[in-house]
């Protein structure tokens, strides 16, 4: 990360994951926040980036209430009944 007195979109987006994980040093974080106050495009990028993470979790949620009986049988055959 460069030590310049401001950040641009490139730096904001390159280090976005670190920013969201609170892993950007305090002084630099202030500059990221200053950039977000003036850049609507980066604000939208940040929001849609976070939404992508949430969508990933929701889309991959699967419910399994009980084991399919044929799978139980296959596992027991492959172990106990060898």
């Amino acid at each position: 990360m460069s030590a310049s007195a401001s950040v641009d979109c490139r730096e904001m987006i390159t280090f976005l994951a670190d920013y969201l994980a609170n892993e950007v040093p305090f002084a630099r974080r202030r500059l990221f926040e200053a950039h977000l106050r003036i850049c609507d495009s980066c604000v939208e990028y940040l929001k849609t980036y976070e939404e992508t993470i949430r969508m990933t979790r929701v889309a991959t949620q699967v419910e399994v209430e009980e084991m399919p009986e044929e799978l139980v049988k296959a596992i027991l055959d492959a172990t106990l009944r060898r």
Partner: protein
Amino acid sequence: MSEAVLAVGCWVLAVHRPKPRIREHPAPSTRLHSLIRLVLTSLLPMGPSNDEASLVSRLQSGDNAAFEELVRVYGPRLLRIARRMMQSEEDARDAVQDAFVSAFKSIGKFEAGSQLSTWLHRIVVNAALMRLRSKRRRPEEDIEDYLPRFQEDGHQVESSVAWNESADTMIERAELRDLVRSSIDHLPETYRVVLLLRDIEELAADEVAKILGITTNAVKVRLHRARQALRAMLDPHMRAHAR
């Protein structure tokens, strides 16, 4: 006394979840959250339950009925994980079978005091990864095509705009869930695996690094690129569903 502290702590955690803030520094709420979590962690009972300890003991003594119990009790959880990671039901079931065969062989090495569910989680993740690696996948997308581009002055070449869809609306929309899943499947394997383990299985970066044999920094870089690429794949569809 500890019950009262526990109740208050749970309530504060429930109503005071730290959210990434855009326009101000979030450190105080995050620190408070960490502190409460620390207090709760010290109050909550840790380690396996008596039932689990008893099951482990029976498993280690070679009790076949205990193994069947293990399969029936923990199987659904393992199948859920495998279904998230694999692209077909058949592959998911094969991964679960591999995992239980592996658990059966290595139950003797299971250390007392460990969590059985955590141990099995790691085994099924590894079994799924082995299967993923052994499968020849279709030609992959080049991730560079999906990363944001910048002008010489550092501005984005294409401005980002708001989406009209969210994870909340997606719950009701099967086609959106399918779109997200198929987009994840189109990520290059090295990136997809990191996204699966970090954002879906929610393993720590250093644990993913250990499983994949790469550095923690490489995990972070790949995760960020995978999220960016996935975001870019979804972007045209999320904008298109204007209300």
